[in-house]
């Protein structure tokens, strides 16, 4: 009989792998019925993001990410979150700056004094992966599997500080790295269009939105536009996420602001520079005071701090429409 030897293994803590437990969760909690799930950002985050959750966001605060939901998580002062910090720019730093985070699985984030200090003082622990290894992990979670073999990551120091293992592949006899599947507690995904049941359309390129939607116990969709289910049925090939993995739908015009939403609006360049500079200079508390704690909602932020003329300007700058209309 072939035995599979573990040749090396990382020492990093990883979210417990439990594919049958995840199946049980899905059986009990994912509604098969077409029930409306439309709710406010406040209600969605109150109901579906809990202290201690493993949280995953698709894209990031600057690029078609769920920026309005991220702000709401910080506004509600969620605690002790474990963050899937891949392809992340400022998002992880904002969550750390809001005191929401205890653990980071790192693919990439924009470093700065806030995260550095939190790690140095032991308030936040970082585990090391890469962007693609993180999306490979979420793919394993989406497939209902316990782990994923990968041809990258072996030999790195990240491996040592992760949940990866090096084994002898029983099929080829060659060494292969395996990484633990990831089934986050909650995923935040911003989309172009969704119906009230959660059938969602993303136009354009992305990171791992389909995998994240399938792999996560609770899924909050924020959508630029709420569309009729008849429209979904007219062109089902454009449905990127099906309703039965979705738990909440939030209507969030400019939900990716200050980031770009392809086809709808560009990034707001001065705001992007402001939030990046805040991250690099340790001024995240001031940024959060202004844009998160200083307002009660996305609508109030847009109204009071951004204003109609800037929104019109970023819409006007989004001149490329090919591929982003149904």
């Amino acid at each position, binding site marked *: 009989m072939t035995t599979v030897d573990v040749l*090396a293994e990382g020492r990093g803590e990883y979210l417990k792998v439990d594919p049958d437990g995840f199946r049980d969760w899905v059986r009990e909690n994912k509604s098969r019925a077409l029930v409306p799930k439309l709710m406010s950002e406040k209600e969605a985050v109150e109901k579906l993001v809990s202290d201690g959750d493993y949280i995953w966001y698709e894209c990031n605060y*600057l*690029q*078609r990410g769920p920026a309005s939901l991220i702000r709401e998580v910080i506004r509600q002062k969620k605690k002790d979150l474990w963050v899937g910090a*891949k*392809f992340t*720019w400022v998002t992880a730093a904002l969550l750390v700056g809001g005191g929401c985070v205890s653990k980071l699985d*790192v*693919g*990439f*984030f*924009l*470093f700065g004094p806030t*995260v*550095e200090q939190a*790690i140095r003082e032991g308030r936040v622990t*970082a585990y*090391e*992966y*890469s*962007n*693609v*290894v993180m*999306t*490979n992990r979420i793919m394993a979670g989406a497939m209902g599997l316990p782990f994923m073999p*990968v*041809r*990258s*990551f*072996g*030999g*790195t*120091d*990240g*491996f040592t*500080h992760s949940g990866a293992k*090096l084994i002898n592949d029983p099929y080829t006899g*060659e*060494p*292969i*790295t395996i990484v633990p599947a990831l089934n986050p507690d909650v995923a935040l995904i911003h989309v172009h269009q969704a119906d009230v049941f959660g059938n969602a359309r993303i136009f*354009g*390129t*992305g*990171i*791992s939105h*389909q995998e994240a939607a399938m792999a996560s116990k609770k899924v909050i969709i924020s959508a630029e536009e709420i569309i009729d289910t008849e429209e979904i049925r007219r062109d089902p090939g454009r449905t990127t996420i099906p309703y039965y993995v979705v738990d909440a739908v939030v209507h969030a015009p400019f939900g990716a602001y200050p980031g*770009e939403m*392809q*086809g709808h609006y*560009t*990034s707001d*360049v001065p705001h*992007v*520079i402001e939030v*990046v500079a805040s991250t690099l200079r340790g001024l995240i508390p001031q940024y959060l005071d202004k844009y998160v704690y200083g307002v009660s909602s996305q609508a109030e932020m847009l109204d009071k701090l951004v204003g109609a003329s800037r929104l019109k300007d970023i819409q006007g700058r989004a001149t*490329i429409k*090919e*591929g*982003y209309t149904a």
Partner: protein
Amino acid sequence: MSEKAAYFNEREHQICTVARMIEDARTYWVAGGGSPMASILLAKMLYAPNAIYVTEDGVVAPEPSLPLDPLMTMVTSRSSYRALQWGTMNTIGFHAQIGLMDYGILNTLQVDPYGNINSTALGDYAGEHRRFGGPGGADSIAALCWHTILMTDQQARKFVPRVDFISSPGFLDGSEGARERVGLPRGTGPWRVVTPWAVFDYEDRHLRLTGVAPFVTVDQVLAEMSFKPKMAKEIEALETPTEDELALLRTELDQRGQITDVGKPVVRQDDGTYAFVEEQKEKGDLPSSW
């Protein structure tokens, strides 16, 4: 090739050097933004129109609408314009994993004699260190593309005998088969390192100096390394940027100077040699055309 420029900076020189390495009709997985992306775009405009590039946000073979807004090099309508496919990070990762990516182009904080790359932490990871952002897509690029081109600065603190943290793999300990023993695909690995001053390749998995820019000496390059590289039998004098290359770089690729404004300016002197502007100013020895 058009006329050699009389005035440029060392960063522009680095980007032009990489641009001239790009092979037509080959695939490149390019780190999102900065010098790597400027290099492939410049190559496509001048030398290798059918070179294909992909980025980790799933974009295959875009014809981007330039210029891009700050940081908006991925998941945006301009950066992904007229692509052949909009996929995801997993699809691009798998394209590389099955062997479709001929080259990767990366930049980094630190590199060692075996081409290992650090973008995670400077100092002692377990103790005092300065934290950086992690490998991002670079680990997959360095592991899965057939050849890796690394762009970094010519500084002693960047060329170190052993990187503080291997974020992305080079030849690891430099022994034969080291990558394969940890499950990386066979036949892959570091290929070139290009700095604003020099070009390196690898001999027996060990960094080797092959070319030096005409505005510095071999000794100046070696003084900005914390280890001694292998030396090619003949050290090539690198070509400096042409007027055409600079015109595209400055008017289309880097209008705002975000990428190139960090390099030291270089000037061609009356005798045809090149020198750093600042040093010539100090000597009171700038060319008559200045």
